[in-house]
């Protein structure tokens, strides 16, 4: 970063003693300094001279084929035309970019490109932002000298469900093929043919089925590749844009959100140097369709005589306040209210809900994870790595689900670290993943036995676990001993208790004290939600309940008396199933050794924040029991979803692109969200719903805008201290700021001029975020209505530390692991049982895909994957129908052989259709691992 900063100095001020690693050359007569080894085109661009180009892309290897970037470069045999994208700057060379000879060559290339071009600009998506068009405008000849018949191809042809190809418009720059082969590692499109018949195409009947296909559309310099959702939807000059962060998953890719007439039309990846390098996954790129969906909740609804009917916010919030009060009263403890979800909110929304739940309702049974993550202490308490650090590490140890399926752009970054860098990957997984082919070592473990494997890696004296090749193990040990080790920790299987994985992660943490961690939790802003305290036992800023008690009591007036429940236990409690008996069956997220939950303090009301446990919680049966068992269910959501059927009140919330605020990614990087749309109907941003609900509960959170919320977070949440609004608004912080701030106040990456930007891909993206409160639609009368409605004690004391005791001035310490966590005991399998692996797919039946028409069709059917020998034992070696039985259910599924699985392990995908039911019908969330038996039906 440093050398970048120096190279962005104005070019003319070169001192004679040039720093090492730098070269000086003459660019159109002036002296310019560049990094050694830098390509001329990039050096010139930083010095303010833009050389036209088509094939060059700063994030891919140069090929120098379009020949648009020819400039004159001096050499031993005089000046010659050289592709500036392919020649490195050399000391003392003279470069001319504006001579007649250069112009003639460049004009010649343009003319050659145009002779076979269809010139259908009026009906081309790219028209108006097309470099071919622009450069022709600027330099091209007025009329064509080409009178022959142009090249013809059938146009356009679909190369996947998402992308269409018009070969007539293609200029053969190979950006798309290089992206597919080099960046995504899926060379499913390629050049076909030769000479002027050279075309891009797919193999017959094998579509470009990549999770990253949309990037090819973004980097295509012309309109040859177009995306189905955007085609013909807008003209570029009508588009309004705002810079934001994608919250489809928790990688937090920076995006330009473009809209027209209050509809999002397109997302473009921004080249955020520390995060996404300009790339997006297709789910993130196209998920905006759900925002535009007709099927949005626009008004609050309350169930009356069995029917949800539209009411005013005022009435709805009154009903909610009454319901929550009643639940607390009935259960005799604040824990009578359970709050589930919040990982899809902004940080501001999550904080406000945390403050409401913990500070006003007093419940600690709050969990942003849906039984599908890891214990929050472990996630927040281990030393964090950044994505850059992972991609640039010596060794990355992955113990998580398939990264390509869960955090796609992190997959690209890790892959690039391996393919283009020196990164070695050690994978610990019960099954093969997309990273397996890139791993130096991929070790299989039996669900429930991750710790055994982790310990074997950590301790050279430990014996190799059964089924592990000793040479592989030795290699993994060697790699784990490297200097820079990053551990990527997530949930390899939803049928295996998260505490078991956390135990393994902590075993590695103890053995590798210098290793850092990158959590592979997947949902949008799950990291922000945990940081804001939406987890049992936690308070905002990565602080434990007890250490933070004084600080937050002073600020909020009160905090919960004792540790509450995680999602699994909330549901169990709501279902009326005693949570105390099963000391061995802990919740995946957050339970510590002794569960202090008292008998009888049953969860009576559920508040579900932008989550859908019916599709996302691993154990379908438990969700149904929990929802049925609860007296009162509130759903805060942006679209109805299956949950509405179970809700007593439905509150409409704003979605991505409709609310300002911030989000926090897996690294702890806080970046700003841009608001591009007015939220539909009466829907509100999440924080506002909590703030107003507080009023209806007779309290006041003293939070009146997102900026106020942020200011309070910065003030109170230790991990977020110093990250003020003005820090976030500095131009240098557009790619976000990693929390907590360390040594220097803010580590800025200077995108303009430092990170390479591809002007062809991201035309004119600049930061124009809007911060601030949106209009409080439909709020009439609500502010006073709450007064006297009865209320929680202490409400009047809240805000700003007005309690009588001596003021606490030092913020509480942040969590620091490893921790003692309670880990369920895994009983060895009997010889008939198999262990189940349930893994995530990018496209599943979750709301984020279901509401997006172009993606919904891509959800695969999933078979049951079984080791071929186990299939042989069943007498169906090549696969076929099998009956799968657990203690409580049985399903008939289609089994296929998968030699990558260990014996006695069967795998399938979560939340996708199986031949019968879904895997959530099989998983027992209270068991450490789900066991089942296979039979021939």
């Amino acid at each position, binding site marked *: 970063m440093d050398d970048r900063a120096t190279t962005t100095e104005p070019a003319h001020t070169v001192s004679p003693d040039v720093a090492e690693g730098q070269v000086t050359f003459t660019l159109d007569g002036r002296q310019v300094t560049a990094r050694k080894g830098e390509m001329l085109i990039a050096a010139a661009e930083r010095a303010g001279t833009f050389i036209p180009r088509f094939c060059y892309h700063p994030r891919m290897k140069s090929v120098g084929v379009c020949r648009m970037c020819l400039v004159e470069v001096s050499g031993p045999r005089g000046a010659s035309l050289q592709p500036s994208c392919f020649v490195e700057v050399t000391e003392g060379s003279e470069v001319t970019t504006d001579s007649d000879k250069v112009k003639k060559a460049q004009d010649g290339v343009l003319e050659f490109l145009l002779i076979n071009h269809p010139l259908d600009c009026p009906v081309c998506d790219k028209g108006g932002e097309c470099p071919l068009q622009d450069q022709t405008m600027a330099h091209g000849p007025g009329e064509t000298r080409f009178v022959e018949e142009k090249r013809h191809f059938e146009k356009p042809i679909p190369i996947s469900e998402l992308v269409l190809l018009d070969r007539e418009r293609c200029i053969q720059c190979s950006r798309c093929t290089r992206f597919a082969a080099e960046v995504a590692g899926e060379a499913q499109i*390629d050049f076909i043919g*030769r000479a002027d018949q050279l075309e891009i195409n797919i193999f017959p009947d094998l579509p470009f089925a990549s999770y990253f296909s949309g990037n090819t559309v973004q980097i295509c310099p012309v309109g040859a590749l177009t995306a189905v959702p955007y085609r013909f939807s807008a003209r570029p000059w009508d588009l309004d844009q705002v810079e934001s962060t994608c919250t489809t998953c928790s990688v937090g890719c920076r995006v330009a959100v473009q809209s027209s007439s209050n509809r999002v039309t397109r997302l473009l990846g921004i080249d955020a140097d520390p995060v996404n390098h300009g790339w997006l996954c297709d789910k993130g790129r196209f998920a905006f369709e759900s925002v535009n969906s007709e099927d949005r909740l626009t008004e609050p609804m309350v169930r009356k005589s069995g029917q949800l009917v539209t009411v005013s916010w005022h009435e709805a919030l009154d009903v909610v306040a009454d319901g929550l009060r009643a639940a607390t009263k009935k259960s005799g403890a604040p824990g009578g209210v359970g709050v589930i979800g919040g990982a899809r909110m902004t940080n501001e929304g999550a904080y406000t809900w945390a403050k409401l739940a913990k500070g006003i309702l007093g419940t600690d049974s709050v969990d942003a994870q849906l039984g599908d993550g890891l214990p929050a202490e472990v996630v927040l308490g281990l030393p964090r790595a950044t994505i850059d650090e992972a991609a640039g590490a010596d060794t990355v140890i992955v113990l998580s689900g398939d990264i390509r399926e869960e955090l796609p752009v992190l997959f690209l970054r890790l892959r690039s670290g391996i393919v283009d860098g020196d990164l070695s990957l050690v994978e610990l997984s019960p099954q*093969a993943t997309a990273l397996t082919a890139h791993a130096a070592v991929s070790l299989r473990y039996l669900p429930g036995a991750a710790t055994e494997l982790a310990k074997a890696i950590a301790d050279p004296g430990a014996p190799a676990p059964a089924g592990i090749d000793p040479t592989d193990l030795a290699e993994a040990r060697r790699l784990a001993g490297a200097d820079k080790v990053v551990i990527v920790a997530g949930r390899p299987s939803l049928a295996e208790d998260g505490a078991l994985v956390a135990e393994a992660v902590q075993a590695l943490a103890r053995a590798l004290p210098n290793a850092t961690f990158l959590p592979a939790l997947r949902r949008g802003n799950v990291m922000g939600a945990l940081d804001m305290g939406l987890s049992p036992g936690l308070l905002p800023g990565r602080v434990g309940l007890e250490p933070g008690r004084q600080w937050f009591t002073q600020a909020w007036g009160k905090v919960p008396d004792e540790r509450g429940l995680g999602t699994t236990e909330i549901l169990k409690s709501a279902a009326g199933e005693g949570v105390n008996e099963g000391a061995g069956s802990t919740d995946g997220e957050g339970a510590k050794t002794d569960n202090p939950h008292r008998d009888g303090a049953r969860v009576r009301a559920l508040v579900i924040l932008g989550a859908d446990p019916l599709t996302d919680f691993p154990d379908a049966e438990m969700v149904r029991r929990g929802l049925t068992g609860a007296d009162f269910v509130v759903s805060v959501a942006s679209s109805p979803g299956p949950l509405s059927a179970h809700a007593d009140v439905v509150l409409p919330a704003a979605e991505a692109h409709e609310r300002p605020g911030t989000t926090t990614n897996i690294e702890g990087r806080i970046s700003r969200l841009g608001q591009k749309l007015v939220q539909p109907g009466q829907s509100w941003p999440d924080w506002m719903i909590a703030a107003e609900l507080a009023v209806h509960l007779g309290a006041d959170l003293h939070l009146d805008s997102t900026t106020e919320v942020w200011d309070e977070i910065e003030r109170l949440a230790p991990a977020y201290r110093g990250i003020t609004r003005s820090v976030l608004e500095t131009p240098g912080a557009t790619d976000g700021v990693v929390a907590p701030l360390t040594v220097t106040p803010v580590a800025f990456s200077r995108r303009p001029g430092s990170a390479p930007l591809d002007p062809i891909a991201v035309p004119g993206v600049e930061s124009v975020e809007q911060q601030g409160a949106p209009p409080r639609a439909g709020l009439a009368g609500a502010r006073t209505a709450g007064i006297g409605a009865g209320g929680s004690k202490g409400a009047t004391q809240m805000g700003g530390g007005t309690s009588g005791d001596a003021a606490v001035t030092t913020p509480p310490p942040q969590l620091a692991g490893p921790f003692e966590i309670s880990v369920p005991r895994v009983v060895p399998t009997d010889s008939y049982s198999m262990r189940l692996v349930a893994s995530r797919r990018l496209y599943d039946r979750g709301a984020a895909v279901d509401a997006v028409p172009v993606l919904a069709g891509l959800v*695969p059917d999933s078979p049951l994957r079984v080791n071929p020998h186990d299939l042989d034992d069943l007498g169906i070696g090549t696969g076929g129908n099998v009956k799968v039985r657990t203690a409580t259910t049985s399903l008939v599924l289609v089994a296929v052989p998968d030699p990558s699985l260990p014996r006695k392990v069967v795998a399938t995908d979560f939340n996708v259709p199986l031949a019968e039911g879904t895997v959530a019908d099989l998983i027992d969330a209270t068991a450490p691992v789900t066991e089942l038996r296979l039979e021939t039906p």
Partner: protein
Amino acid sequence: MSSTAHPTPVARPRSKGGPTPTLTHLRGATATRARELIALYPEPRSALIPLCHLAQEQEGWLSPEIMVDIAALLDLTPAEVLGTASFYDMLHTEPVGSHLVSVCTNIACLLNGAMELLEHAESTLGVNAGGTTADGAVTLEEAECLAGCDGAPCVQVNHRYVGAQTAESFDQLIADLRSGARAAEIPTHGTLNRVARTTGLQADRNQVANERSAMAETQAQRAAAAKDTAANKAGA
């Protein structure tokens, strides 16, 4: 359910230590030879063209199924195989008649009546250059220089030179091809090289490398010795 097959979590087999790919169309001895060919090269992908020739020997052309097999053998995508094969004139992604008749019309042959011969061929065979006769016996091709310019106009059948042709001799040639009269000399389309590699460095590259470095050492010693002698001489 979906018409697009999206990435499966199961990784593509790797040539290094990965499971042996199952082939559906490259059969028996051909599959064995394919693996032998791959072993000749430091990188498997180098065997792509030889494998395509081998596949054409079996099938006469590169069917999509066979390209999928080649991709599996070389750890490539089918698109990469097609993309590479389609670059080369001799690799056919469309079916070819059992005899590919290539008439060169490049400069030396042009000067010796090649265009006229090609026109004659088109009319007697009833197909345009690039086409295949209805009986599947002959595919006619307008070729670039075949490096047989002393026998212009130069014609090859399945890449066997058949000497300069006149209209009459051409007709006879076609008749012979159809009757099988020249079968011994001209195999059916796809068979390029009937001489297999019988010997060779039997696989052990490391051994060669070792020998080579050992030899480099002796040579260095020899050179040093020679230098010494020279120095001694000069000194004397």
